[in-house]
C-alpha cells in the first residue's frame, strides 16, 4: 500500500504529463508539434543506428574529459589559493571577473587559439567549468573549522595528512556544490561548442535537424539531451551522497 502510494507520487505526474502530450498531439498536423507517437517512433532509428557512436559518445567523451580536467585544476588551484591568504586577496577580483564572464563567449575566443577541433571544445568546457569549482574550493578551504585546524597542528599532522584528512574533506561539501554548478555549465558548453562549429556531436546534429526541418528527429535530439542531463545529474548525486556520507543529514 505504502509502496503503491510512493509509486503514484513518483510517477503519477510524469505519466500524466506524457499522456497529455501524447493525446494533445495525437492527430497533430502542426509542423512544429508532431505527434509524440511519431517522435517516439523515430527515436531508435535516429540515434541507435550509428549516431550513438558517431555523435553521442564523442560529445559525452569531450564533456567528461573537460569536466574531469576542470575538477583537477579547480580543486588543485582552489586548495593552493585558499591556503594562502595573501595570494587569495591578490587573485580575488581577477577570479570574480573571470567567473562573471558568461562561459559561452569563450567559444569564439578559444576558436582563435585552438580552431574548431576537439581540443577547442574540451578547452571551452574546461575554461567554463573551472570557475565555480575553483571559487567554491577556495571558500571551502577557507571555511575549514578553526578548532579542527588547531587539532591537526597539535597532533603534528604532516602536509599530506593535513591535505587528505583535513583540508579536502573539510572543503568537500563546498567543492561538491561547485562541482554541481560546473557540471550544468559543462553540459551547456558541450552543446554550444558543437552548435557553433563542429562536424559531429549532439549539438551539431540537433542543429542540423532543425536546419533541415527534420522536426521529429529534432525533438528526439532535445529529448536525448534532456535525458543525458538528467542521467548525469543522477550519477552526480549518487557520487556526492557517497562522498559526503559522513555528514549527519
Amino acid at each position, binding site marked *: 500500500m505504502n509502496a503503491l502510494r510512493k509509486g503514484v*507520487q*513518483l*510517477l*503519477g*505526474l*510524469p505519466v500524466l*504529463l506524457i499522456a497529455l502530450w501524447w493525446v494533445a498531439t495525437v492527430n497533430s498536423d502542426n509542423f*512544429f508539434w508532431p505527434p509524440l507517437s511519431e517522435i517516439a517512433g523515430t527515436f531508435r532509428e535516429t540515434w541507435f543506428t550509428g549516431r550513438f557512436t558517431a555523435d553521442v559518445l564523442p560529445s559525452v567523451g569531450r564533456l567528461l574529459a573537460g569536466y574531469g580536467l576542470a575538477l583537477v585544476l579547480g580543486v588543485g588551484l582552489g586548495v593552493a589559493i585558499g591556503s594562502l*591568504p*595573501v595570494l587569495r*586577496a*591578490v*587573485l*580575488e*577580483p*581577477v577570479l*570574480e*571577473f*573571470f*567567473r*562573471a*564572464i*558568461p*562561459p*559561452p*563567449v569563450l*567559444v*569564439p*575566443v578559444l*576558436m*582563435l*587559439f585552438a580552431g574548431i577541433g576537439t581540443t577547442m571544445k574540451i578547452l571551452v568546457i574546461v575554461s567554463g567549468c573551472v570557475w565555480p569549482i575553483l571559487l567554491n574550493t577556495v571558500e571551502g578551504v577557507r571555511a575549514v573549522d578553526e578548532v579542527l585546524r588547531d587539532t591537526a597542528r597539535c597532533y603534528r599532522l604532516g602536509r599530506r595528512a593535513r591535505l587528505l584528512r583535513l583540508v579536502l574533506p573539510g572543503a568537500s561539501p563546498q567543492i*561538491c*556544490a561547485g562541482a*554541481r*554548478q560546473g557540471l*550544468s555549465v559543462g*553540459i*551547456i558548453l558541450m*552543446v*554550444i561548442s558543437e*552548435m*557553433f562549429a563542429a562536424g559531429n556531436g549532439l*549539438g551539431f546534429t*540537433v*542543429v542540423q*535537424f*532543425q536546419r533541415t*526541418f527534420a*522536426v521529429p528527429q*529534432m*525533438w528526439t*535530439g*532535445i529529448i536525448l*539531451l*534532456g535525458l543525458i*542531463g*538528467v542521467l*548525469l*545529474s543522477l550519477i552526480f548525486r549518487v557520487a556526492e551522497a557517497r562522498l559526503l556520507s559522513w555528514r549527519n543529514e
Partner: protein
Amino acid sequence: MRRTPPPWALGGLGLAGLVLVLEATPRVGLVDRRYLPPFSAMVEALAGQAGTAEFWRSLLETLRGWALGLGIAMVAGVVLGLVIGGVPVARTATTSTIEFLRPIPSVALIPLAVLLFGTDLRSTLLIVVYATFWQVLVQVLYGVRDVDPVARETARSYRFRPLTQVRTVLWPTALPYVLTGFRLGAAVALILEITGELVIGSPGLGRQIAEAQNSGAVPAMYALVIVVGLIGVAVNAAARATERRALRWHPSIRREIPA
C-alpha cells in the same frame, strides 16, 4: 610584526597584474597578437565601440532581454513555488517531475526556439526564462518548506483566509530564499541571454561578439567580452547588495541551498 597590506590593495595589485600580463604577452611574442592583442589595443577598440550607436543599442538589448527574462522567471517561479509549496499534495506530486525537468539543459531548447521564433528576441527569451525559472522555483520551494509548522497551525486555527496566510506566514519565511533565487537567477539569466544572442543571433552584445569574430575584428571581440564580464560583475554585485539590504531586518539564519 609584519602587517599585510589591506585586501583592496592586494586585489588592485592582482588586477594590475592581469592587465600587465595581457599587455606584455602579445608584445614580447609569447602569444600571437592576431589571437590575443595587447590590452591597450582592446581598450582602443572599446573606445571605438563606445562611439557607435550600435554598441549602445546592443547593450540595451542585452540588458532588456536579461531583465525581461529574469522578471518573467521570478514571477512564475515565486507564484508557482508558493502554490506548489503551500499545498502538500501538489508538493509530493511534483517533486519527481521537478527533479527531472530541472537538469535538462536549457540550450537543448535552442533548436525548438529557432524553429518557432527564428532569430527573434523571443527565442532567447524562451531559454532565459526556462533556465532561470528552475533556479527561482527550487529556492522558493525550499523556503516554503522552511515555514514554522507552529506558525502555519496558528494561522490556520485563527482561520486566516488563504491569501492572508500567504501574506503573513508563507511570504516572510520564503523571502530570504526568494532573494537567493533572485541572485542565482540573475547570473544564470545573463549567461543564457548572452548564449542566445551568440548562438541564435538575436540582437544584443552576444551577437556583436559573434559578428566581431566572424569579421576578424579580434580586439573588438575582446573588448566586448570584457564589457560582458563587467556586466556580469555588476549583476552579481547588485544582486548581492539587494539581498543584503532586503534582509538586514530578517532574523532567520539562512543556509544557501546549492541549486
